[in-house]
């Protein structure tokens, strides 16, 4: 369960996030949809304790992130938009390192790593160093790292950005699987097809504000349009974000 209420964050004269409130429930894939610069990543960074909001509150499983950052961090797994891999470590070492940082004992580490490697079908790259990885392989490693401590809440920043069709399918498959396990999945994207294909609920953000929030059907109904694409254009007032 991830909740944002009246989040605001400015950087100097720029207000990146003005007023963002939404909640993402367990067992549901929630998508933050917005064009570039809409405030998606800043919102995610506030939810993941990386940025302190100027105003408002971020809650993970009902815990105020500002008051319980450690406990909140235990409950989230994140895939940052810069995947943040260490060029000279192998895929396996990345995952093991993440586990070790979360205090998973050595004995438990190995089977968990193997399970994730199977799940993400990355057996062929486990012992290769990250410097030569393709985008898809990078995302897989970063995802495995995010899931290593079995978090209840998973936040993915542009998870399929730059991926080919096969990798995109694999990531979507994984996201559906996480939903099936009852996890709370929050993903951000600027690609509408991505969001409409994956998400049960959509939060449309523009200019740091939430413009629409609901299931695809609700958003269509509220905008008075038949399909999500039309609804999105009508809500956001421009065709930005439709460009792949």
């Amino acid at each position, binding site marked *: 369960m991830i909740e944002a209420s009246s989040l605001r964050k400015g950087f100097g004269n720029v207000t990146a996030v003005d007023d963002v409130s939404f909640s993402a429930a367990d067992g549901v894939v929630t998508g933050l949809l917005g064009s570039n610069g809409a405030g998606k990543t800043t919102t995610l960074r506030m939810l993941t304790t*990386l*940025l302190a909001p100027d105003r408002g509150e971020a809650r993970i499983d009902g815990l105020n992130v500002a008051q319980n950052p450690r406990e909140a*961090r235990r409950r989230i797994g994140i895939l940052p938009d810069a995947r*943040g891999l260490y060029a*000279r*470590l192998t895929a396996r070492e990345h995952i093991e390192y993440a586990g070790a940082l979360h205090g998973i004992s050595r004995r438990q580490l190995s089977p968990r790593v193997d399970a994730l490697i199977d799940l993400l079908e990355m057996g062929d790259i486990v012992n290769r160093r990250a410097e030569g990885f393709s985008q898809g392989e990078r995302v897989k490693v970063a995802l495995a790292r995010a899931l290593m401590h079995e978090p209840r809440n998973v936040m993915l920043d542009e998870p399929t950005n730059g991926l080919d069709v096969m990798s995109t399918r694999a990531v979507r498959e994984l996201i559906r699987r996480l939903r099936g396990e009852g996890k709370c999945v929050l993903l951000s994207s600027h690609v509408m097809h991505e969001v409409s294909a994956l998400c049960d609920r959509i939060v449309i953000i523009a200019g740091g504000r939430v413009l629409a929030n609901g299931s695809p059907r609700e958003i269509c109904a509220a905008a008075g349009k038949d399909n999500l694409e039309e609804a999105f254009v009508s809500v956001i007032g421009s065709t930005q974000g439709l460009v792949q």
Partner: protein
Amino acid sequence: MIAAIFRKEWTDHLRDRGSVFSSLIVPIIGPLVFLFTFSRLANSTREDQPLTLPVAGAANAPNLVAFLQRQGVIVEQAPEDFEALVRDGKLNLVLSIPEDYGKEFEAGRSAPVRLVEDSSRPETRRQAARARRLLEAYARRMSLLRMIARGVSPSLVAPLDLTDVDLATPEKTAANVLQAVPLFLLLSVAIGNARPLLLPCIVQEEGRSRSGGRDVLRVRPDLGDGATRKTRRCPRN
């Protein structure tokens, strides 16, 4: 936790051949270069090489020339245009003895000698200093002989009898070079190559250079202090 980070940093940085190489090479090669330069320098200042001294008008002061030769100086006949040659840097220094040297010397007056040099050249300065010392020694000896000839004890004008006793061995001098090693270690750290030697700095540096890596570190429950650290980063959407 700390152990895991330490292991990871070691693996990561030991695999960075470039920085391992340079972090080891700078402290090792640095003192060697140091040693080489200094021994070259020491060689050039050492005085066991004979001093070669071109003399103009050697025939005017055979006694002085003989003294110089006894002191190991290789006395050469100076060319006619020695002043121009010294000015052009083709000769280091020339001892010029004018014709009236003998007359003045015999009369017991100060006899003129000229040491022609270009003092802007360090090499010349050292040779000129050696020549000057020898000339002064000759002058001292002559003054002593004159005093003795007049029945004055030389120790009257020498209240002190100073002897320098230097017990340094070449090995001890060389050991000084080892003292340069820590300096070079520090230097290489400052250059930023010795990253494995300075682990605590790496985590910081990691953050600065790779924001993604930092984000992942900072959301670890026991590691990150997240937004409590003042961060003013531009938002990236």
